[in-house]
Structure formats: C-alpha cells, structure tokens
C-alpha cells in the first residue's frame, strides 16, 4: 500500500431552514479553498445519486435564490427556495488520503481514497468525525478492487455509494431533514394524553428555538412566520387541552404565549404589507414602502428587546416543563387516559364549535362573527395537524381539505379588511406628515379599493363554502375519523 497525498477541503452544506433544497431532491454544497479565501465553488447535486448537476465558481457562498446563476438547472433550485435565506446546515472539513494498492512489481492495482470528515453542527458547534473509504478499480486489475472493497465492508467502513449528507446529519444527532417538517410527532393511540401533549409541545418549542436566530437576524420573513405559527399552535393546544395539563401551569403558559404572539405581531403585519406591495420599483408606492420599512425597523427593535428579556427565557423554560407539571386526577382528568380517545374527543368538540357558530352567520351578521369563526376553524386545524400521526392519512386529509377551503375564504375576508383599514390609516399618516405626493395617495386608494372588492367577493362566497363544510357528507368524514361525535365530550 502506498500513500501519496493528504489534503484538506472545507465544504459547507447549504439549505433553507425548512430544507427546501433537500426536499426537492437536491444538495447544495460550497467548497472553500484551504485557507477559507474566495473564490468558492458552488456545487448542485442530486440528493440520491450524488450526481453533480451543475457547478459554479463564485466570489462568495450564495445567500438567497437571487445569488444563484440565472440558468437551468439552477433555476429549478431557485424556484424551490423562493425568498428563503440559505443557511449553513453543516460544515465539514475533509482530510483526504490517497492510497494505492501495489502488487509485487510496485504497480498500482487499485486506488483507495480515505476521507476523514470532521463535521461541525451549526447549532451546537459540536464536532464529530466520520470516515469514508472509496475504492477505484484500475483497468485490467478489477479483482483487486473487489477484494479491497470486501475487506472494507468487513471492517465496517461506510459504503462509498451512500450520499454523505444524510450520514453527516445522522452523525450530528439530527433527524433526517425529511422528518423535520410539520408539527406531526410520532404518537400512539395507547400512550397517555399527557405524554402525547408533552411530545407535541416539545416539537413546537423546538420550532420556535430553531427559527429564533432567523427572526433576530431578519434573514427572511419566513422565519418569523414559522415562529409565529409554532406559537399559535402551542397556544391553541394549551388552551384546548384542558383536562390534560395542570390548569394553573397551562393558564400561565397560555398567557405568556399570548404576550409573545403580541410581541411578534406588528413585525409580521408589516412584513405582509410589504410583501403585498412587492419590491421597490421606483413607482408611486415607494414613499409608502419607505414608511413601512421605517416602522418595521422600530417594531423589530422592540421584538429583539422582548426576546432578550428574562420574561422570554422564563417562557421557554415553562414551555419545556408544562407537560410534566404535577396535576391530580380531578384537575386533569384526561392526563392518564389514552391519547387516541383524548384526541378524538377534542377534535369532535372543536368541529362541533365550528358548525355551531358557522350556522348562526347570515348575510347580515357583523364581520366579528366571521373573524371568531376563523379562530375556531384554526383551532380545529391545529388539532388535526398536531395529532395527525394518530389517524390514517387519507381520512385526515379528506377532512382537512374541506376545512382548508373554509379557512381560505375566512382568511381572505379578514386579511382584505385589515389591509384596507391599514391603507386608510397609513394614507392619513402620510397626508399629515406631507411625506408623499398626491400620486402616492391615489395609488393607495386604488389598492384599498381592490382590497374592498376582494373582501366583498369573499363574503359572498362564504355561505357556499360553509354549506359544503357542514354538509352531511363532510360530517360523515369527520365521524369516520374520530368516531361517534357525541361521545367523550370533555367540555
């Protein structure tokens, strides 16, 4: 065996926080020179075959889809990433040793590439080591390579055909990216309701923690969106799961989650307004964009102050411990019962609430009733999502489909109302500060008018959507999912 070189290579794996490249079947790598200097090489691979689809020299690692080359196949990747920030998901330093298998004439009869990958996780900074070996046959001496391969497999070396990234992630103690998405934690119907709720709340807390850095650094707007979705889900679960958690601990956590939702709300509202306006393009709406961006900076600073406060640290701590807070059977009658029957009962109750309130709405009902119905529909949706692993996929998605259709309608109605009202308020502010020409105010007027038209359309469509949701056929679907709706009502 002869050795001829050992080189170090630094490679980072990039992906969005929600692993869009990986989900799309791709891997995005950035190779840095030994000294970490520019330029870098960006490589775009097929996730499963590891085949290189494209490679590109660049001055620095890409941060957004807009930094990728504007040609195929990069455009497929850019489309999947959308506006999300590319983050370093793993950082590997690889030491390569090339060896040759020699015969009696000192002729090379196979090549052996031994690699030692030192992997650093982005969150915990812990270092792990992974060793791989790749055998390359030499023409006319294939049997030697086969034998060496056998020896390596016997010795437990990682087969060279396996994609490196999943092995790297496993090594870092992180679940495979595919299982990281969504609130669905593995649950069993026979586990206790308290255990199931603990697992769900832990997962949601993890979502908040994972997205926090992106919220602080404003990497992209999706971090805050995902962060807030996790808060809303947790709040909804804590409030709806009465009878599972210790009431005092649950009440206190729900109140703190409400505080956190309120703290993050203003930034999200401004993100939505800015997204509606689209990027700056030198048009009449630019003064409005500047106004909104200025406001956003102010509310973001307030958000950071909140995240730095002891109150936030305490909230995360109480979130971690709420499911293990002691509760007696009288206070929490569902805690020790099977998760399956608890979940059935909660979903059935939430469904009944939506039906009951929806039925009361007529064309003359005040908008607030529709807003309230939207909240109830969300509660039902969160239950269906958080307890999803207890139900067969097909049955659950059938119920979610009709619910989503109703939610879309209610969402459109409320969003348009909020947007139109906000435009009116902002127009007044601009007028008062004389910060915008008349053209801007007129353009805003047109936007508000458009929102009002959409709002009217949504209101008009509501009855038909609700009729479908509350139809006997759809009620049967819910009954198929959670059993007899009359049974096990906890409240």
């Amino acid at each position, binding site marked *: 065996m002869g050795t001829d070189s050992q080189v170090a290579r630094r490679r980072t794996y990039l992906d969005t926080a929600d692993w869009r490249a990986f989900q799309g079947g791709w891997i995005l790598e950035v190779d840095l020179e030994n000294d970490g200097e520019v330029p870098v090489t960006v490589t775009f691979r097929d996730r499963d075959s590891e085949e290189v689809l494209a490679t590109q020299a660049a001055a620095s690692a890409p941060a957004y889809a807009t930094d990728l080359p504007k040609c195929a196949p990069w455009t497929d990747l850019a489309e999947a990433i959308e506006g999300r920030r590319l983050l370093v998901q793993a950082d590997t330093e690889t030491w390569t040793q090339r060896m040759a298998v020699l015969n009696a*004439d000192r002729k*090379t009869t196979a090549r052996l590439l031994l690699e030692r990958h030192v992997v650093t996780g982005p969150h915990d900074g812990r270092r792990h080591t992974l060793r791989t070996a790749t055998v390359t046959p030499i*023409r006319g*001496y294939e049997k030697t390579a086969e034998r060496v391969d056998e020896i390596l497999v016997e010795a437990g070396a990682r087969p060279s055909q396996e994609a490196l990234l999943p092995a790297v992630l496993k090594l870092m103690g992180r679940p495979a990216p595919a299982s990281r998405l969504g609130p669905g934690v593995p649950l069993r119907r026979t586990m206790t309701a308290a255990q199931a709720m603990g697992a769900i709340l832990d997962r949601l807390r993890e979502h908040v923690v994972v997205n926090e850095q992106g919220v602080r650094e404003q990497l992209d707007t999706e971090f805050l969106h995902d962060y807030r979705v996790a808060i809303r889900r947790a709040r909804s679960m804590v409030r709806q799961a009465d009878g599972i958690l210790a009431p005092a601990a649950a009440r206190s956590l729900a109140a703190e989650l409400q505080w956190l939702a309120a703290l993050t709300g203003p930034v999200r509202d401004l993100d939505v307004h800015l997204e509606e306006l689209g990027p700056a393009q030198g048009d009449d709406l630019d003064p409005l964009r500047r106004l909104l961006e200025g406001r956003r900076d102010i509310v973001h600073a307030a958000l950071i102050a909140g995240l730095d406060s002891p109150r936030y640290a305490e909230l995360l701590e109480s979130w971690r411990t709420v499911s293990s807070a002691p509760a007696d059977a009288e206070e929490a009658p569902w805690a020790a019962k099977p998760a399956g029957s608890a979940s059935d009962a909660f979903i059935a109750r939430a469904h009944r609430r939506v039906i009951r309130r929806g039925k009361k709405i007529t064309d003359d009902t005040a908008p607030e009733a529709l807003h309230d119905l939207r909240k109830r529909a969300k509660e039902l949706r969160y239950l269906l999502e958080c307890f999803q692993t207890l139900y067969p996929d097909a049955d659950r998605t059938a119920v979610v489909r009709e619910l989503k259709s109703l939610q879309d309608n209610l969402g459109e109605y409320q969003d348009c109302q909020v947007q139109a009202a906000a435009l009116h308020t902002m127009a007044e502010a601009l007028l008062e500060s004389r910060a915008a020409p008349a053209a801007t105010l007129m353009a805003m007027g047109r936007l508000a008018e458009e929102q009002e038209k959409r709002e009217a359309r949504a209101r008009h469509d509501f009855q038909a959507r609700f009729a479908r949701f509350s139809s006997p056929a759809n009620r049967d679907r819910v009954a198929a999912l959670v059993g007899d709706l009359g049974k096990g009502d906890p409240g």
Partner: protein
Amino acid sequence: MRIIATYSIKGGVGKTTTAVNLAFLSAAEGARTLVWDLDPQGAATFLFRVKPRVKGGGKALVRGRSEVDHLIKGTDFDLLDLLPADLSYRHMDLDLDQAKQSTRLLARVLAPVRQEYDCVILDCPPSLSLVSESVFDAAELVLVPMIPSPLPARTLDQLEQFLKDKEARHPSRRAKDPKILAFFSMVDRRRRLHGQVISELLASRSDVLKSEVPASTVFEQMGVRRAPVEYYAPSSPAALAYRALWQEVKERG
C-alpha cells in the same frame, strides 16, 4: 482518436522513451491516452510495471479472436492505459503475413476502443517489415527519433522510399500515408558533430522538428524509477525537452 507511432529502423534511439513520455504528457493534459507496446522486448510495458503478457498472444489479437478491451491495463497514471507487449509479438510479421489485408489489421484491432481514447501511441519494434507497414496504415503521424550522426538523413530517405514502395506493392489501395516527422534524440551539444548535423538537417529538410531531446542520465533512471521523466524529474532539462517536443508535435502534426 488520434494515432501516433514512434518508429525507427534503428534500435536504441529513444523510441520507447519518447512513446512513454509523450503519452504521459498527453494524459496529463486530460486526453484519454493508450500506449500499445508492439515491441516484443516490452520496454514500455516494463516501464509501466505491467506484466508483458497478452492472453492468447499476438496472433489471436491481430486475427480478432481476442477482445482488445479485456487486454488493456490501467497504468499508475490517470487517463493513461497500456496494451502490453507479449513475447509472441516477435512472430507478428508471420501472423500478419498469413492474414488477408494484413496491413490494415492493427487499425482494426483498435477499432473497438476508438471511442474510449483521444490519443493512441504505438511503440514500434525497430525494423522495416509487415508490422511497420501495418503501423503506417494505422497511424496519422509517425515520429522518428534520430541520433545526430552523419547518416540520419539516409534513414529518413529509406523510410520515404519504403512508403513509396508500399504504394507500388498495393496499387489498388489508396490508404493515406502518415505524416512523417523526425526529431533529434540523445543530443550532446558538447560534441561539435552533433551541432553540425543538426544545423545542416534543419536547414535542408522541412520534416525535422526543432525540438531536441538531450542525452541525459535522467533518462537512464527511467529503468530504475519505472516512470516517465515528467513524473520524477519534472524540472529536469530532459522533461522540459519532451514538453517542448510535445508542443511542437501538436502544432505540426
């Protein structure tokens, strides 16, 4: 696929050294390169540390009974492969003589791997024979190393005459003759005669390349190191000379 032969009527003039070093340079540039060691002595095969054995021998190979694909060996260098020598090649003249269209057989042997290589270098045995004729039929370019002695021009003339006679022997065949380019090898500039011969020939003939390969102890080490000079002495004058020669071959060949 480009086929280049290193050929000389005389032995010991640096044919194998040239074949091995130019093949290495070709592969180093990224061209998939094959050396076919046609000399039964197997010097190129020895330099690449490969056993001088071809399953079935030369006869089966030229008669198309062995698949060339299975006989090729990878060398220690990326993109550089070898079709080894075999002692039975000493009867290759006879094997070719018994076959139909004998001069076309070497080209036919290489046909199955045509897509696999960008460059094939034939290291030929020293003689004027049916094997040489077959080499001239297969190659586009014949590189002739010459020691700067008083008679090198005669060797070149002999070669040209041989090609003319070949046409006369096979009037029905209109195979295109290869381009012949000679160059000086084992040059010792301290010897006046060498300088004189080189100047005269360069002045009188257009088929002699300007690059010259010096006599050097670095070449003697090839047999011990069993590798091209570029590999173990890349900054030696010997290595520089082959780099210049390869450049000129690419420009003029």
